[in-house]
């Protein structure tokens, strides 16, 4: 279980998160929505301790990971997989080397086993036969799939997705959503998805958390969210700009 307690984070004079608290049960799929620059990705990075909060706690199965040093966090992060907004593939490596990377670092598999696992995982994400390609030769959607393959090959318990469908066309976005659902059902993982794509949020989320004005503003099932009459939630779902935000 992931538990976030009274998390505060600021960059310089700019507060990003204030007293953010929520819980995510094992196997649950939670989507965090909110406006661009609202602190969603920061929240995701705090959950996996890529950033340290100013105060508050992040508990993974009861263990507070705030304040642990980088070496102590290696053990904690073995439970996590993360798909980055820009995929964050190692550009000096081929697709095969990228996907095989976590297994090679663990050193518990033979090269033959690693090759078989890589081929199988690439098949799961719909990219068979791309082993020898370099990240620069792949489209945005393919890169995200390779990023997902790299994140799931060692079967983590928790998967974090940072804007998995941003910048992709609706058809590729839909295939990524399908993949997220398939991986969740197949590996029984806890999924945390950060997005502002409401169509995607509705499809992949069992619960939606809305981040607004640095705090968790609303929480509920997708059905409750889309039926909400709250003006802030409604505005976000309908995608209506504030009058003062209209430039021309």
């Amino acid at each position, binding site marked *: 279980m992931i538990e976030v307690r009274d998390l505060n984070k600021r960059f310089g004079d700019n507060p990003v998160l204030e007293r953010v608290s929520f819980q995510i049960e094992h196997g649950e799929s939670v989507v965090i929505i909110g406006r661009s620059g609202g602190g969603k990705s920061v929240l995701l990075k705090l959950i996996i301790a*890529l950033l340290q909060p100013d105060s508050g706690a992040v508990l993974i199965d009861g263990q507070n990971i705030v304040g642990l040093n980088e070496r102590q966090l290696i053990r904690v*992060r073995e439970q996590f997989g*993360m798909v980055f907004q*820009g995929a*964050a593939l*190692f*550009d000096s490596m081929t697709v095969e080397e990228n996907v095989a990377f976590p297994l090679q670092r663990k050193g518990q598999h033979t090269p033959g086993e690693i090759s078989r696992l890589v081929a199988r995982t690439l098949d799961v994400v719909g990219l068979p036969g791309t082993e020898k390609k370099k990240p620069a030769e792949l489209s945005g959607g393919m890169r995200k799939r390779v990023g997902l393959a790299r994140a799931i090959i060692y079967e983590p318990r928790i998967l974090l997705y940072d804007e998995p469908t941003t910048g992709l066309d609706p058809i590729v976005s839909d295939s990524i959503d399908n993949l997220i659902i398939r991986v969740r059902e197949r590996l029984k993982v806890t999924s945390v998805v950060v997005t502002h794509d409401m169509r995607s949020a509705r499809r992949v989320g069992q619960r939606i958390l809305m981040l607004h004005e640095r705090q968790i503003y609303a929480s509920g099932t997708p059905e409750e969210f889309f039926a909400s009459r709250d003006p802030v939630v409604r505005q976000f779902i309908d995608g209506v700009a504030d009058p003062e935000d209209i430039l021309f």
Partner: protein
Amino acid sequence: MNEFGQKWVVGGLVGLGQITMLAKEAVASCLTFKLAKRDLLFQIYSIGVKSQSVVLVTGAFTGMVLAAQTYFQFHKVKMDTATLAVVSVSMCSELGPVLTALMVAGRVGASMAAELGTMRVTEQIDALRTLATHPVDYLVVPRLVASLVALPILTTEAMAIGIAASYIVGVFLLGIDPAYAWWNMLKYSHDSDVQIGIIKAVVYGGIIALVGCYKGLSCGMGAEGVGRATTEAVVYASISILISNFFLTLVLEQLALILKL
């Protein structure tokens, strides 16, 4: 001290502290002996083998110009045959290690900062961390160990080619008597000159790798951040080499005297 001066001093001290912490992490990681041979060999190839041409050209022409300049001054006082002795001592204990380190800092330090900086801005370092890999283990340690191995070898090459080139210039171009030149060179050059040069090269190897990696790992966002990190890596590594050279010379020469090397 004005506000700008205070910021500059504090920034410098913070940077120095962070490089020290990075060095401590890297040494602790080295002691676990988990270094991947493949990564280390690749870095030795990248730092050592690929720097050969630039180091050999630098060493050769430094030896040649030093021979010519020394000859023109010594010729006035009829000390032509001492030329190679001066070149040999200078190349071994000062110019060989310092110029090699400066050339490698320009080529390799910049490349380390740019590579690691780009990895940082494209979240590849964050990706490494999420894959339960410590960036110091995977990125810094192979570069540090490779630099510590490659710099002494490159420096020895620069010393040898510098002395050889100075011999060619002195004997065949300037007409110095080869037997006396060779005799004087052996008489006034000592083992300690070579040992001091190699010890300096090891220290400079550490400086280049640590400054390059630190600047890359801590670079600012975007292309501007990577560009600045690259420039700063070369500038700070070069300045550190020149400053540390003075103190290393004082300490090592005194040590050589005490130990009568």
